[in-house]
């Protein structure tokens, strides 16, 4: 019981700070980095917490299938977005002082 609460709290913290990073960061690539962490770590932690809370049943087996699918496909989607932005020539963000030099 304590273990499931711990995993769910960890996932909620990851998702909250990932969304904060989506709003506050200045560039595509930095936003992509925090979005990827939010997807992978937060999602997987919440699903593991729900599996521990449910116990061994058919419901938790289906949660396990969704967890494996999300763990396989989220990095692929993130990499596809980054590759598309890099091919179209989006420059990474610099500080203003480095840009002046």
């Amino acid at each position, binding site marked *: 019981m304590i273990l499931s609460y711990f995993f769910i709290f960890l996932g909620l913290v990851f998702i909250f700070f990932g969304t904060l990073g989506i709003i506050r960061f200045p560039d595509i690539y930095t936003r992509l980095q925090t*979005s990827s962490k939010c997807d992978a770590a937060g999602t997987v932690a919440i699903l593991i917490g729900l599996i521990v809370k449910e116990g061994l049943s058919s419901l938790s087996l289906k949660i396990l299938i969704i967890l494996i699918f999300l763990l396989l496909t989220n990095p692929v*989607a993130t990499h*596809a*977005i980054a590759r*598309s932005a890099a091919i179209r020539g989006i420059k990474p963000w610099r500080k203003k002082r480095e840009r002046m030099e």
Partner: protein
Amino acid sequence: MNVISIIITVLGVTASLALYRVIFGPTPWDRLIAVNLISSKVVIIMVATAALFKQSIYMDVALVYAIIGFVSIIAISKFLEGKENKK
């Protein structure tokens, strides 16, 4: 108050915060990142709803929604890539 309803509340609030980036994003890729994030949050909300009501049918809906979201993200990013690499 139940733990699962806390999960659903926090995910709904953060999804509506990420909607800011969908509306005001400067480039199309920002909107794509935020849509990807909201899609994975909706999958978690569906799984939590299935665990709350003990109904196994919501789990199939969540799986199909995850598959459709993945395919649409790949297709839109290939579309935004343009025709420059077909030389």
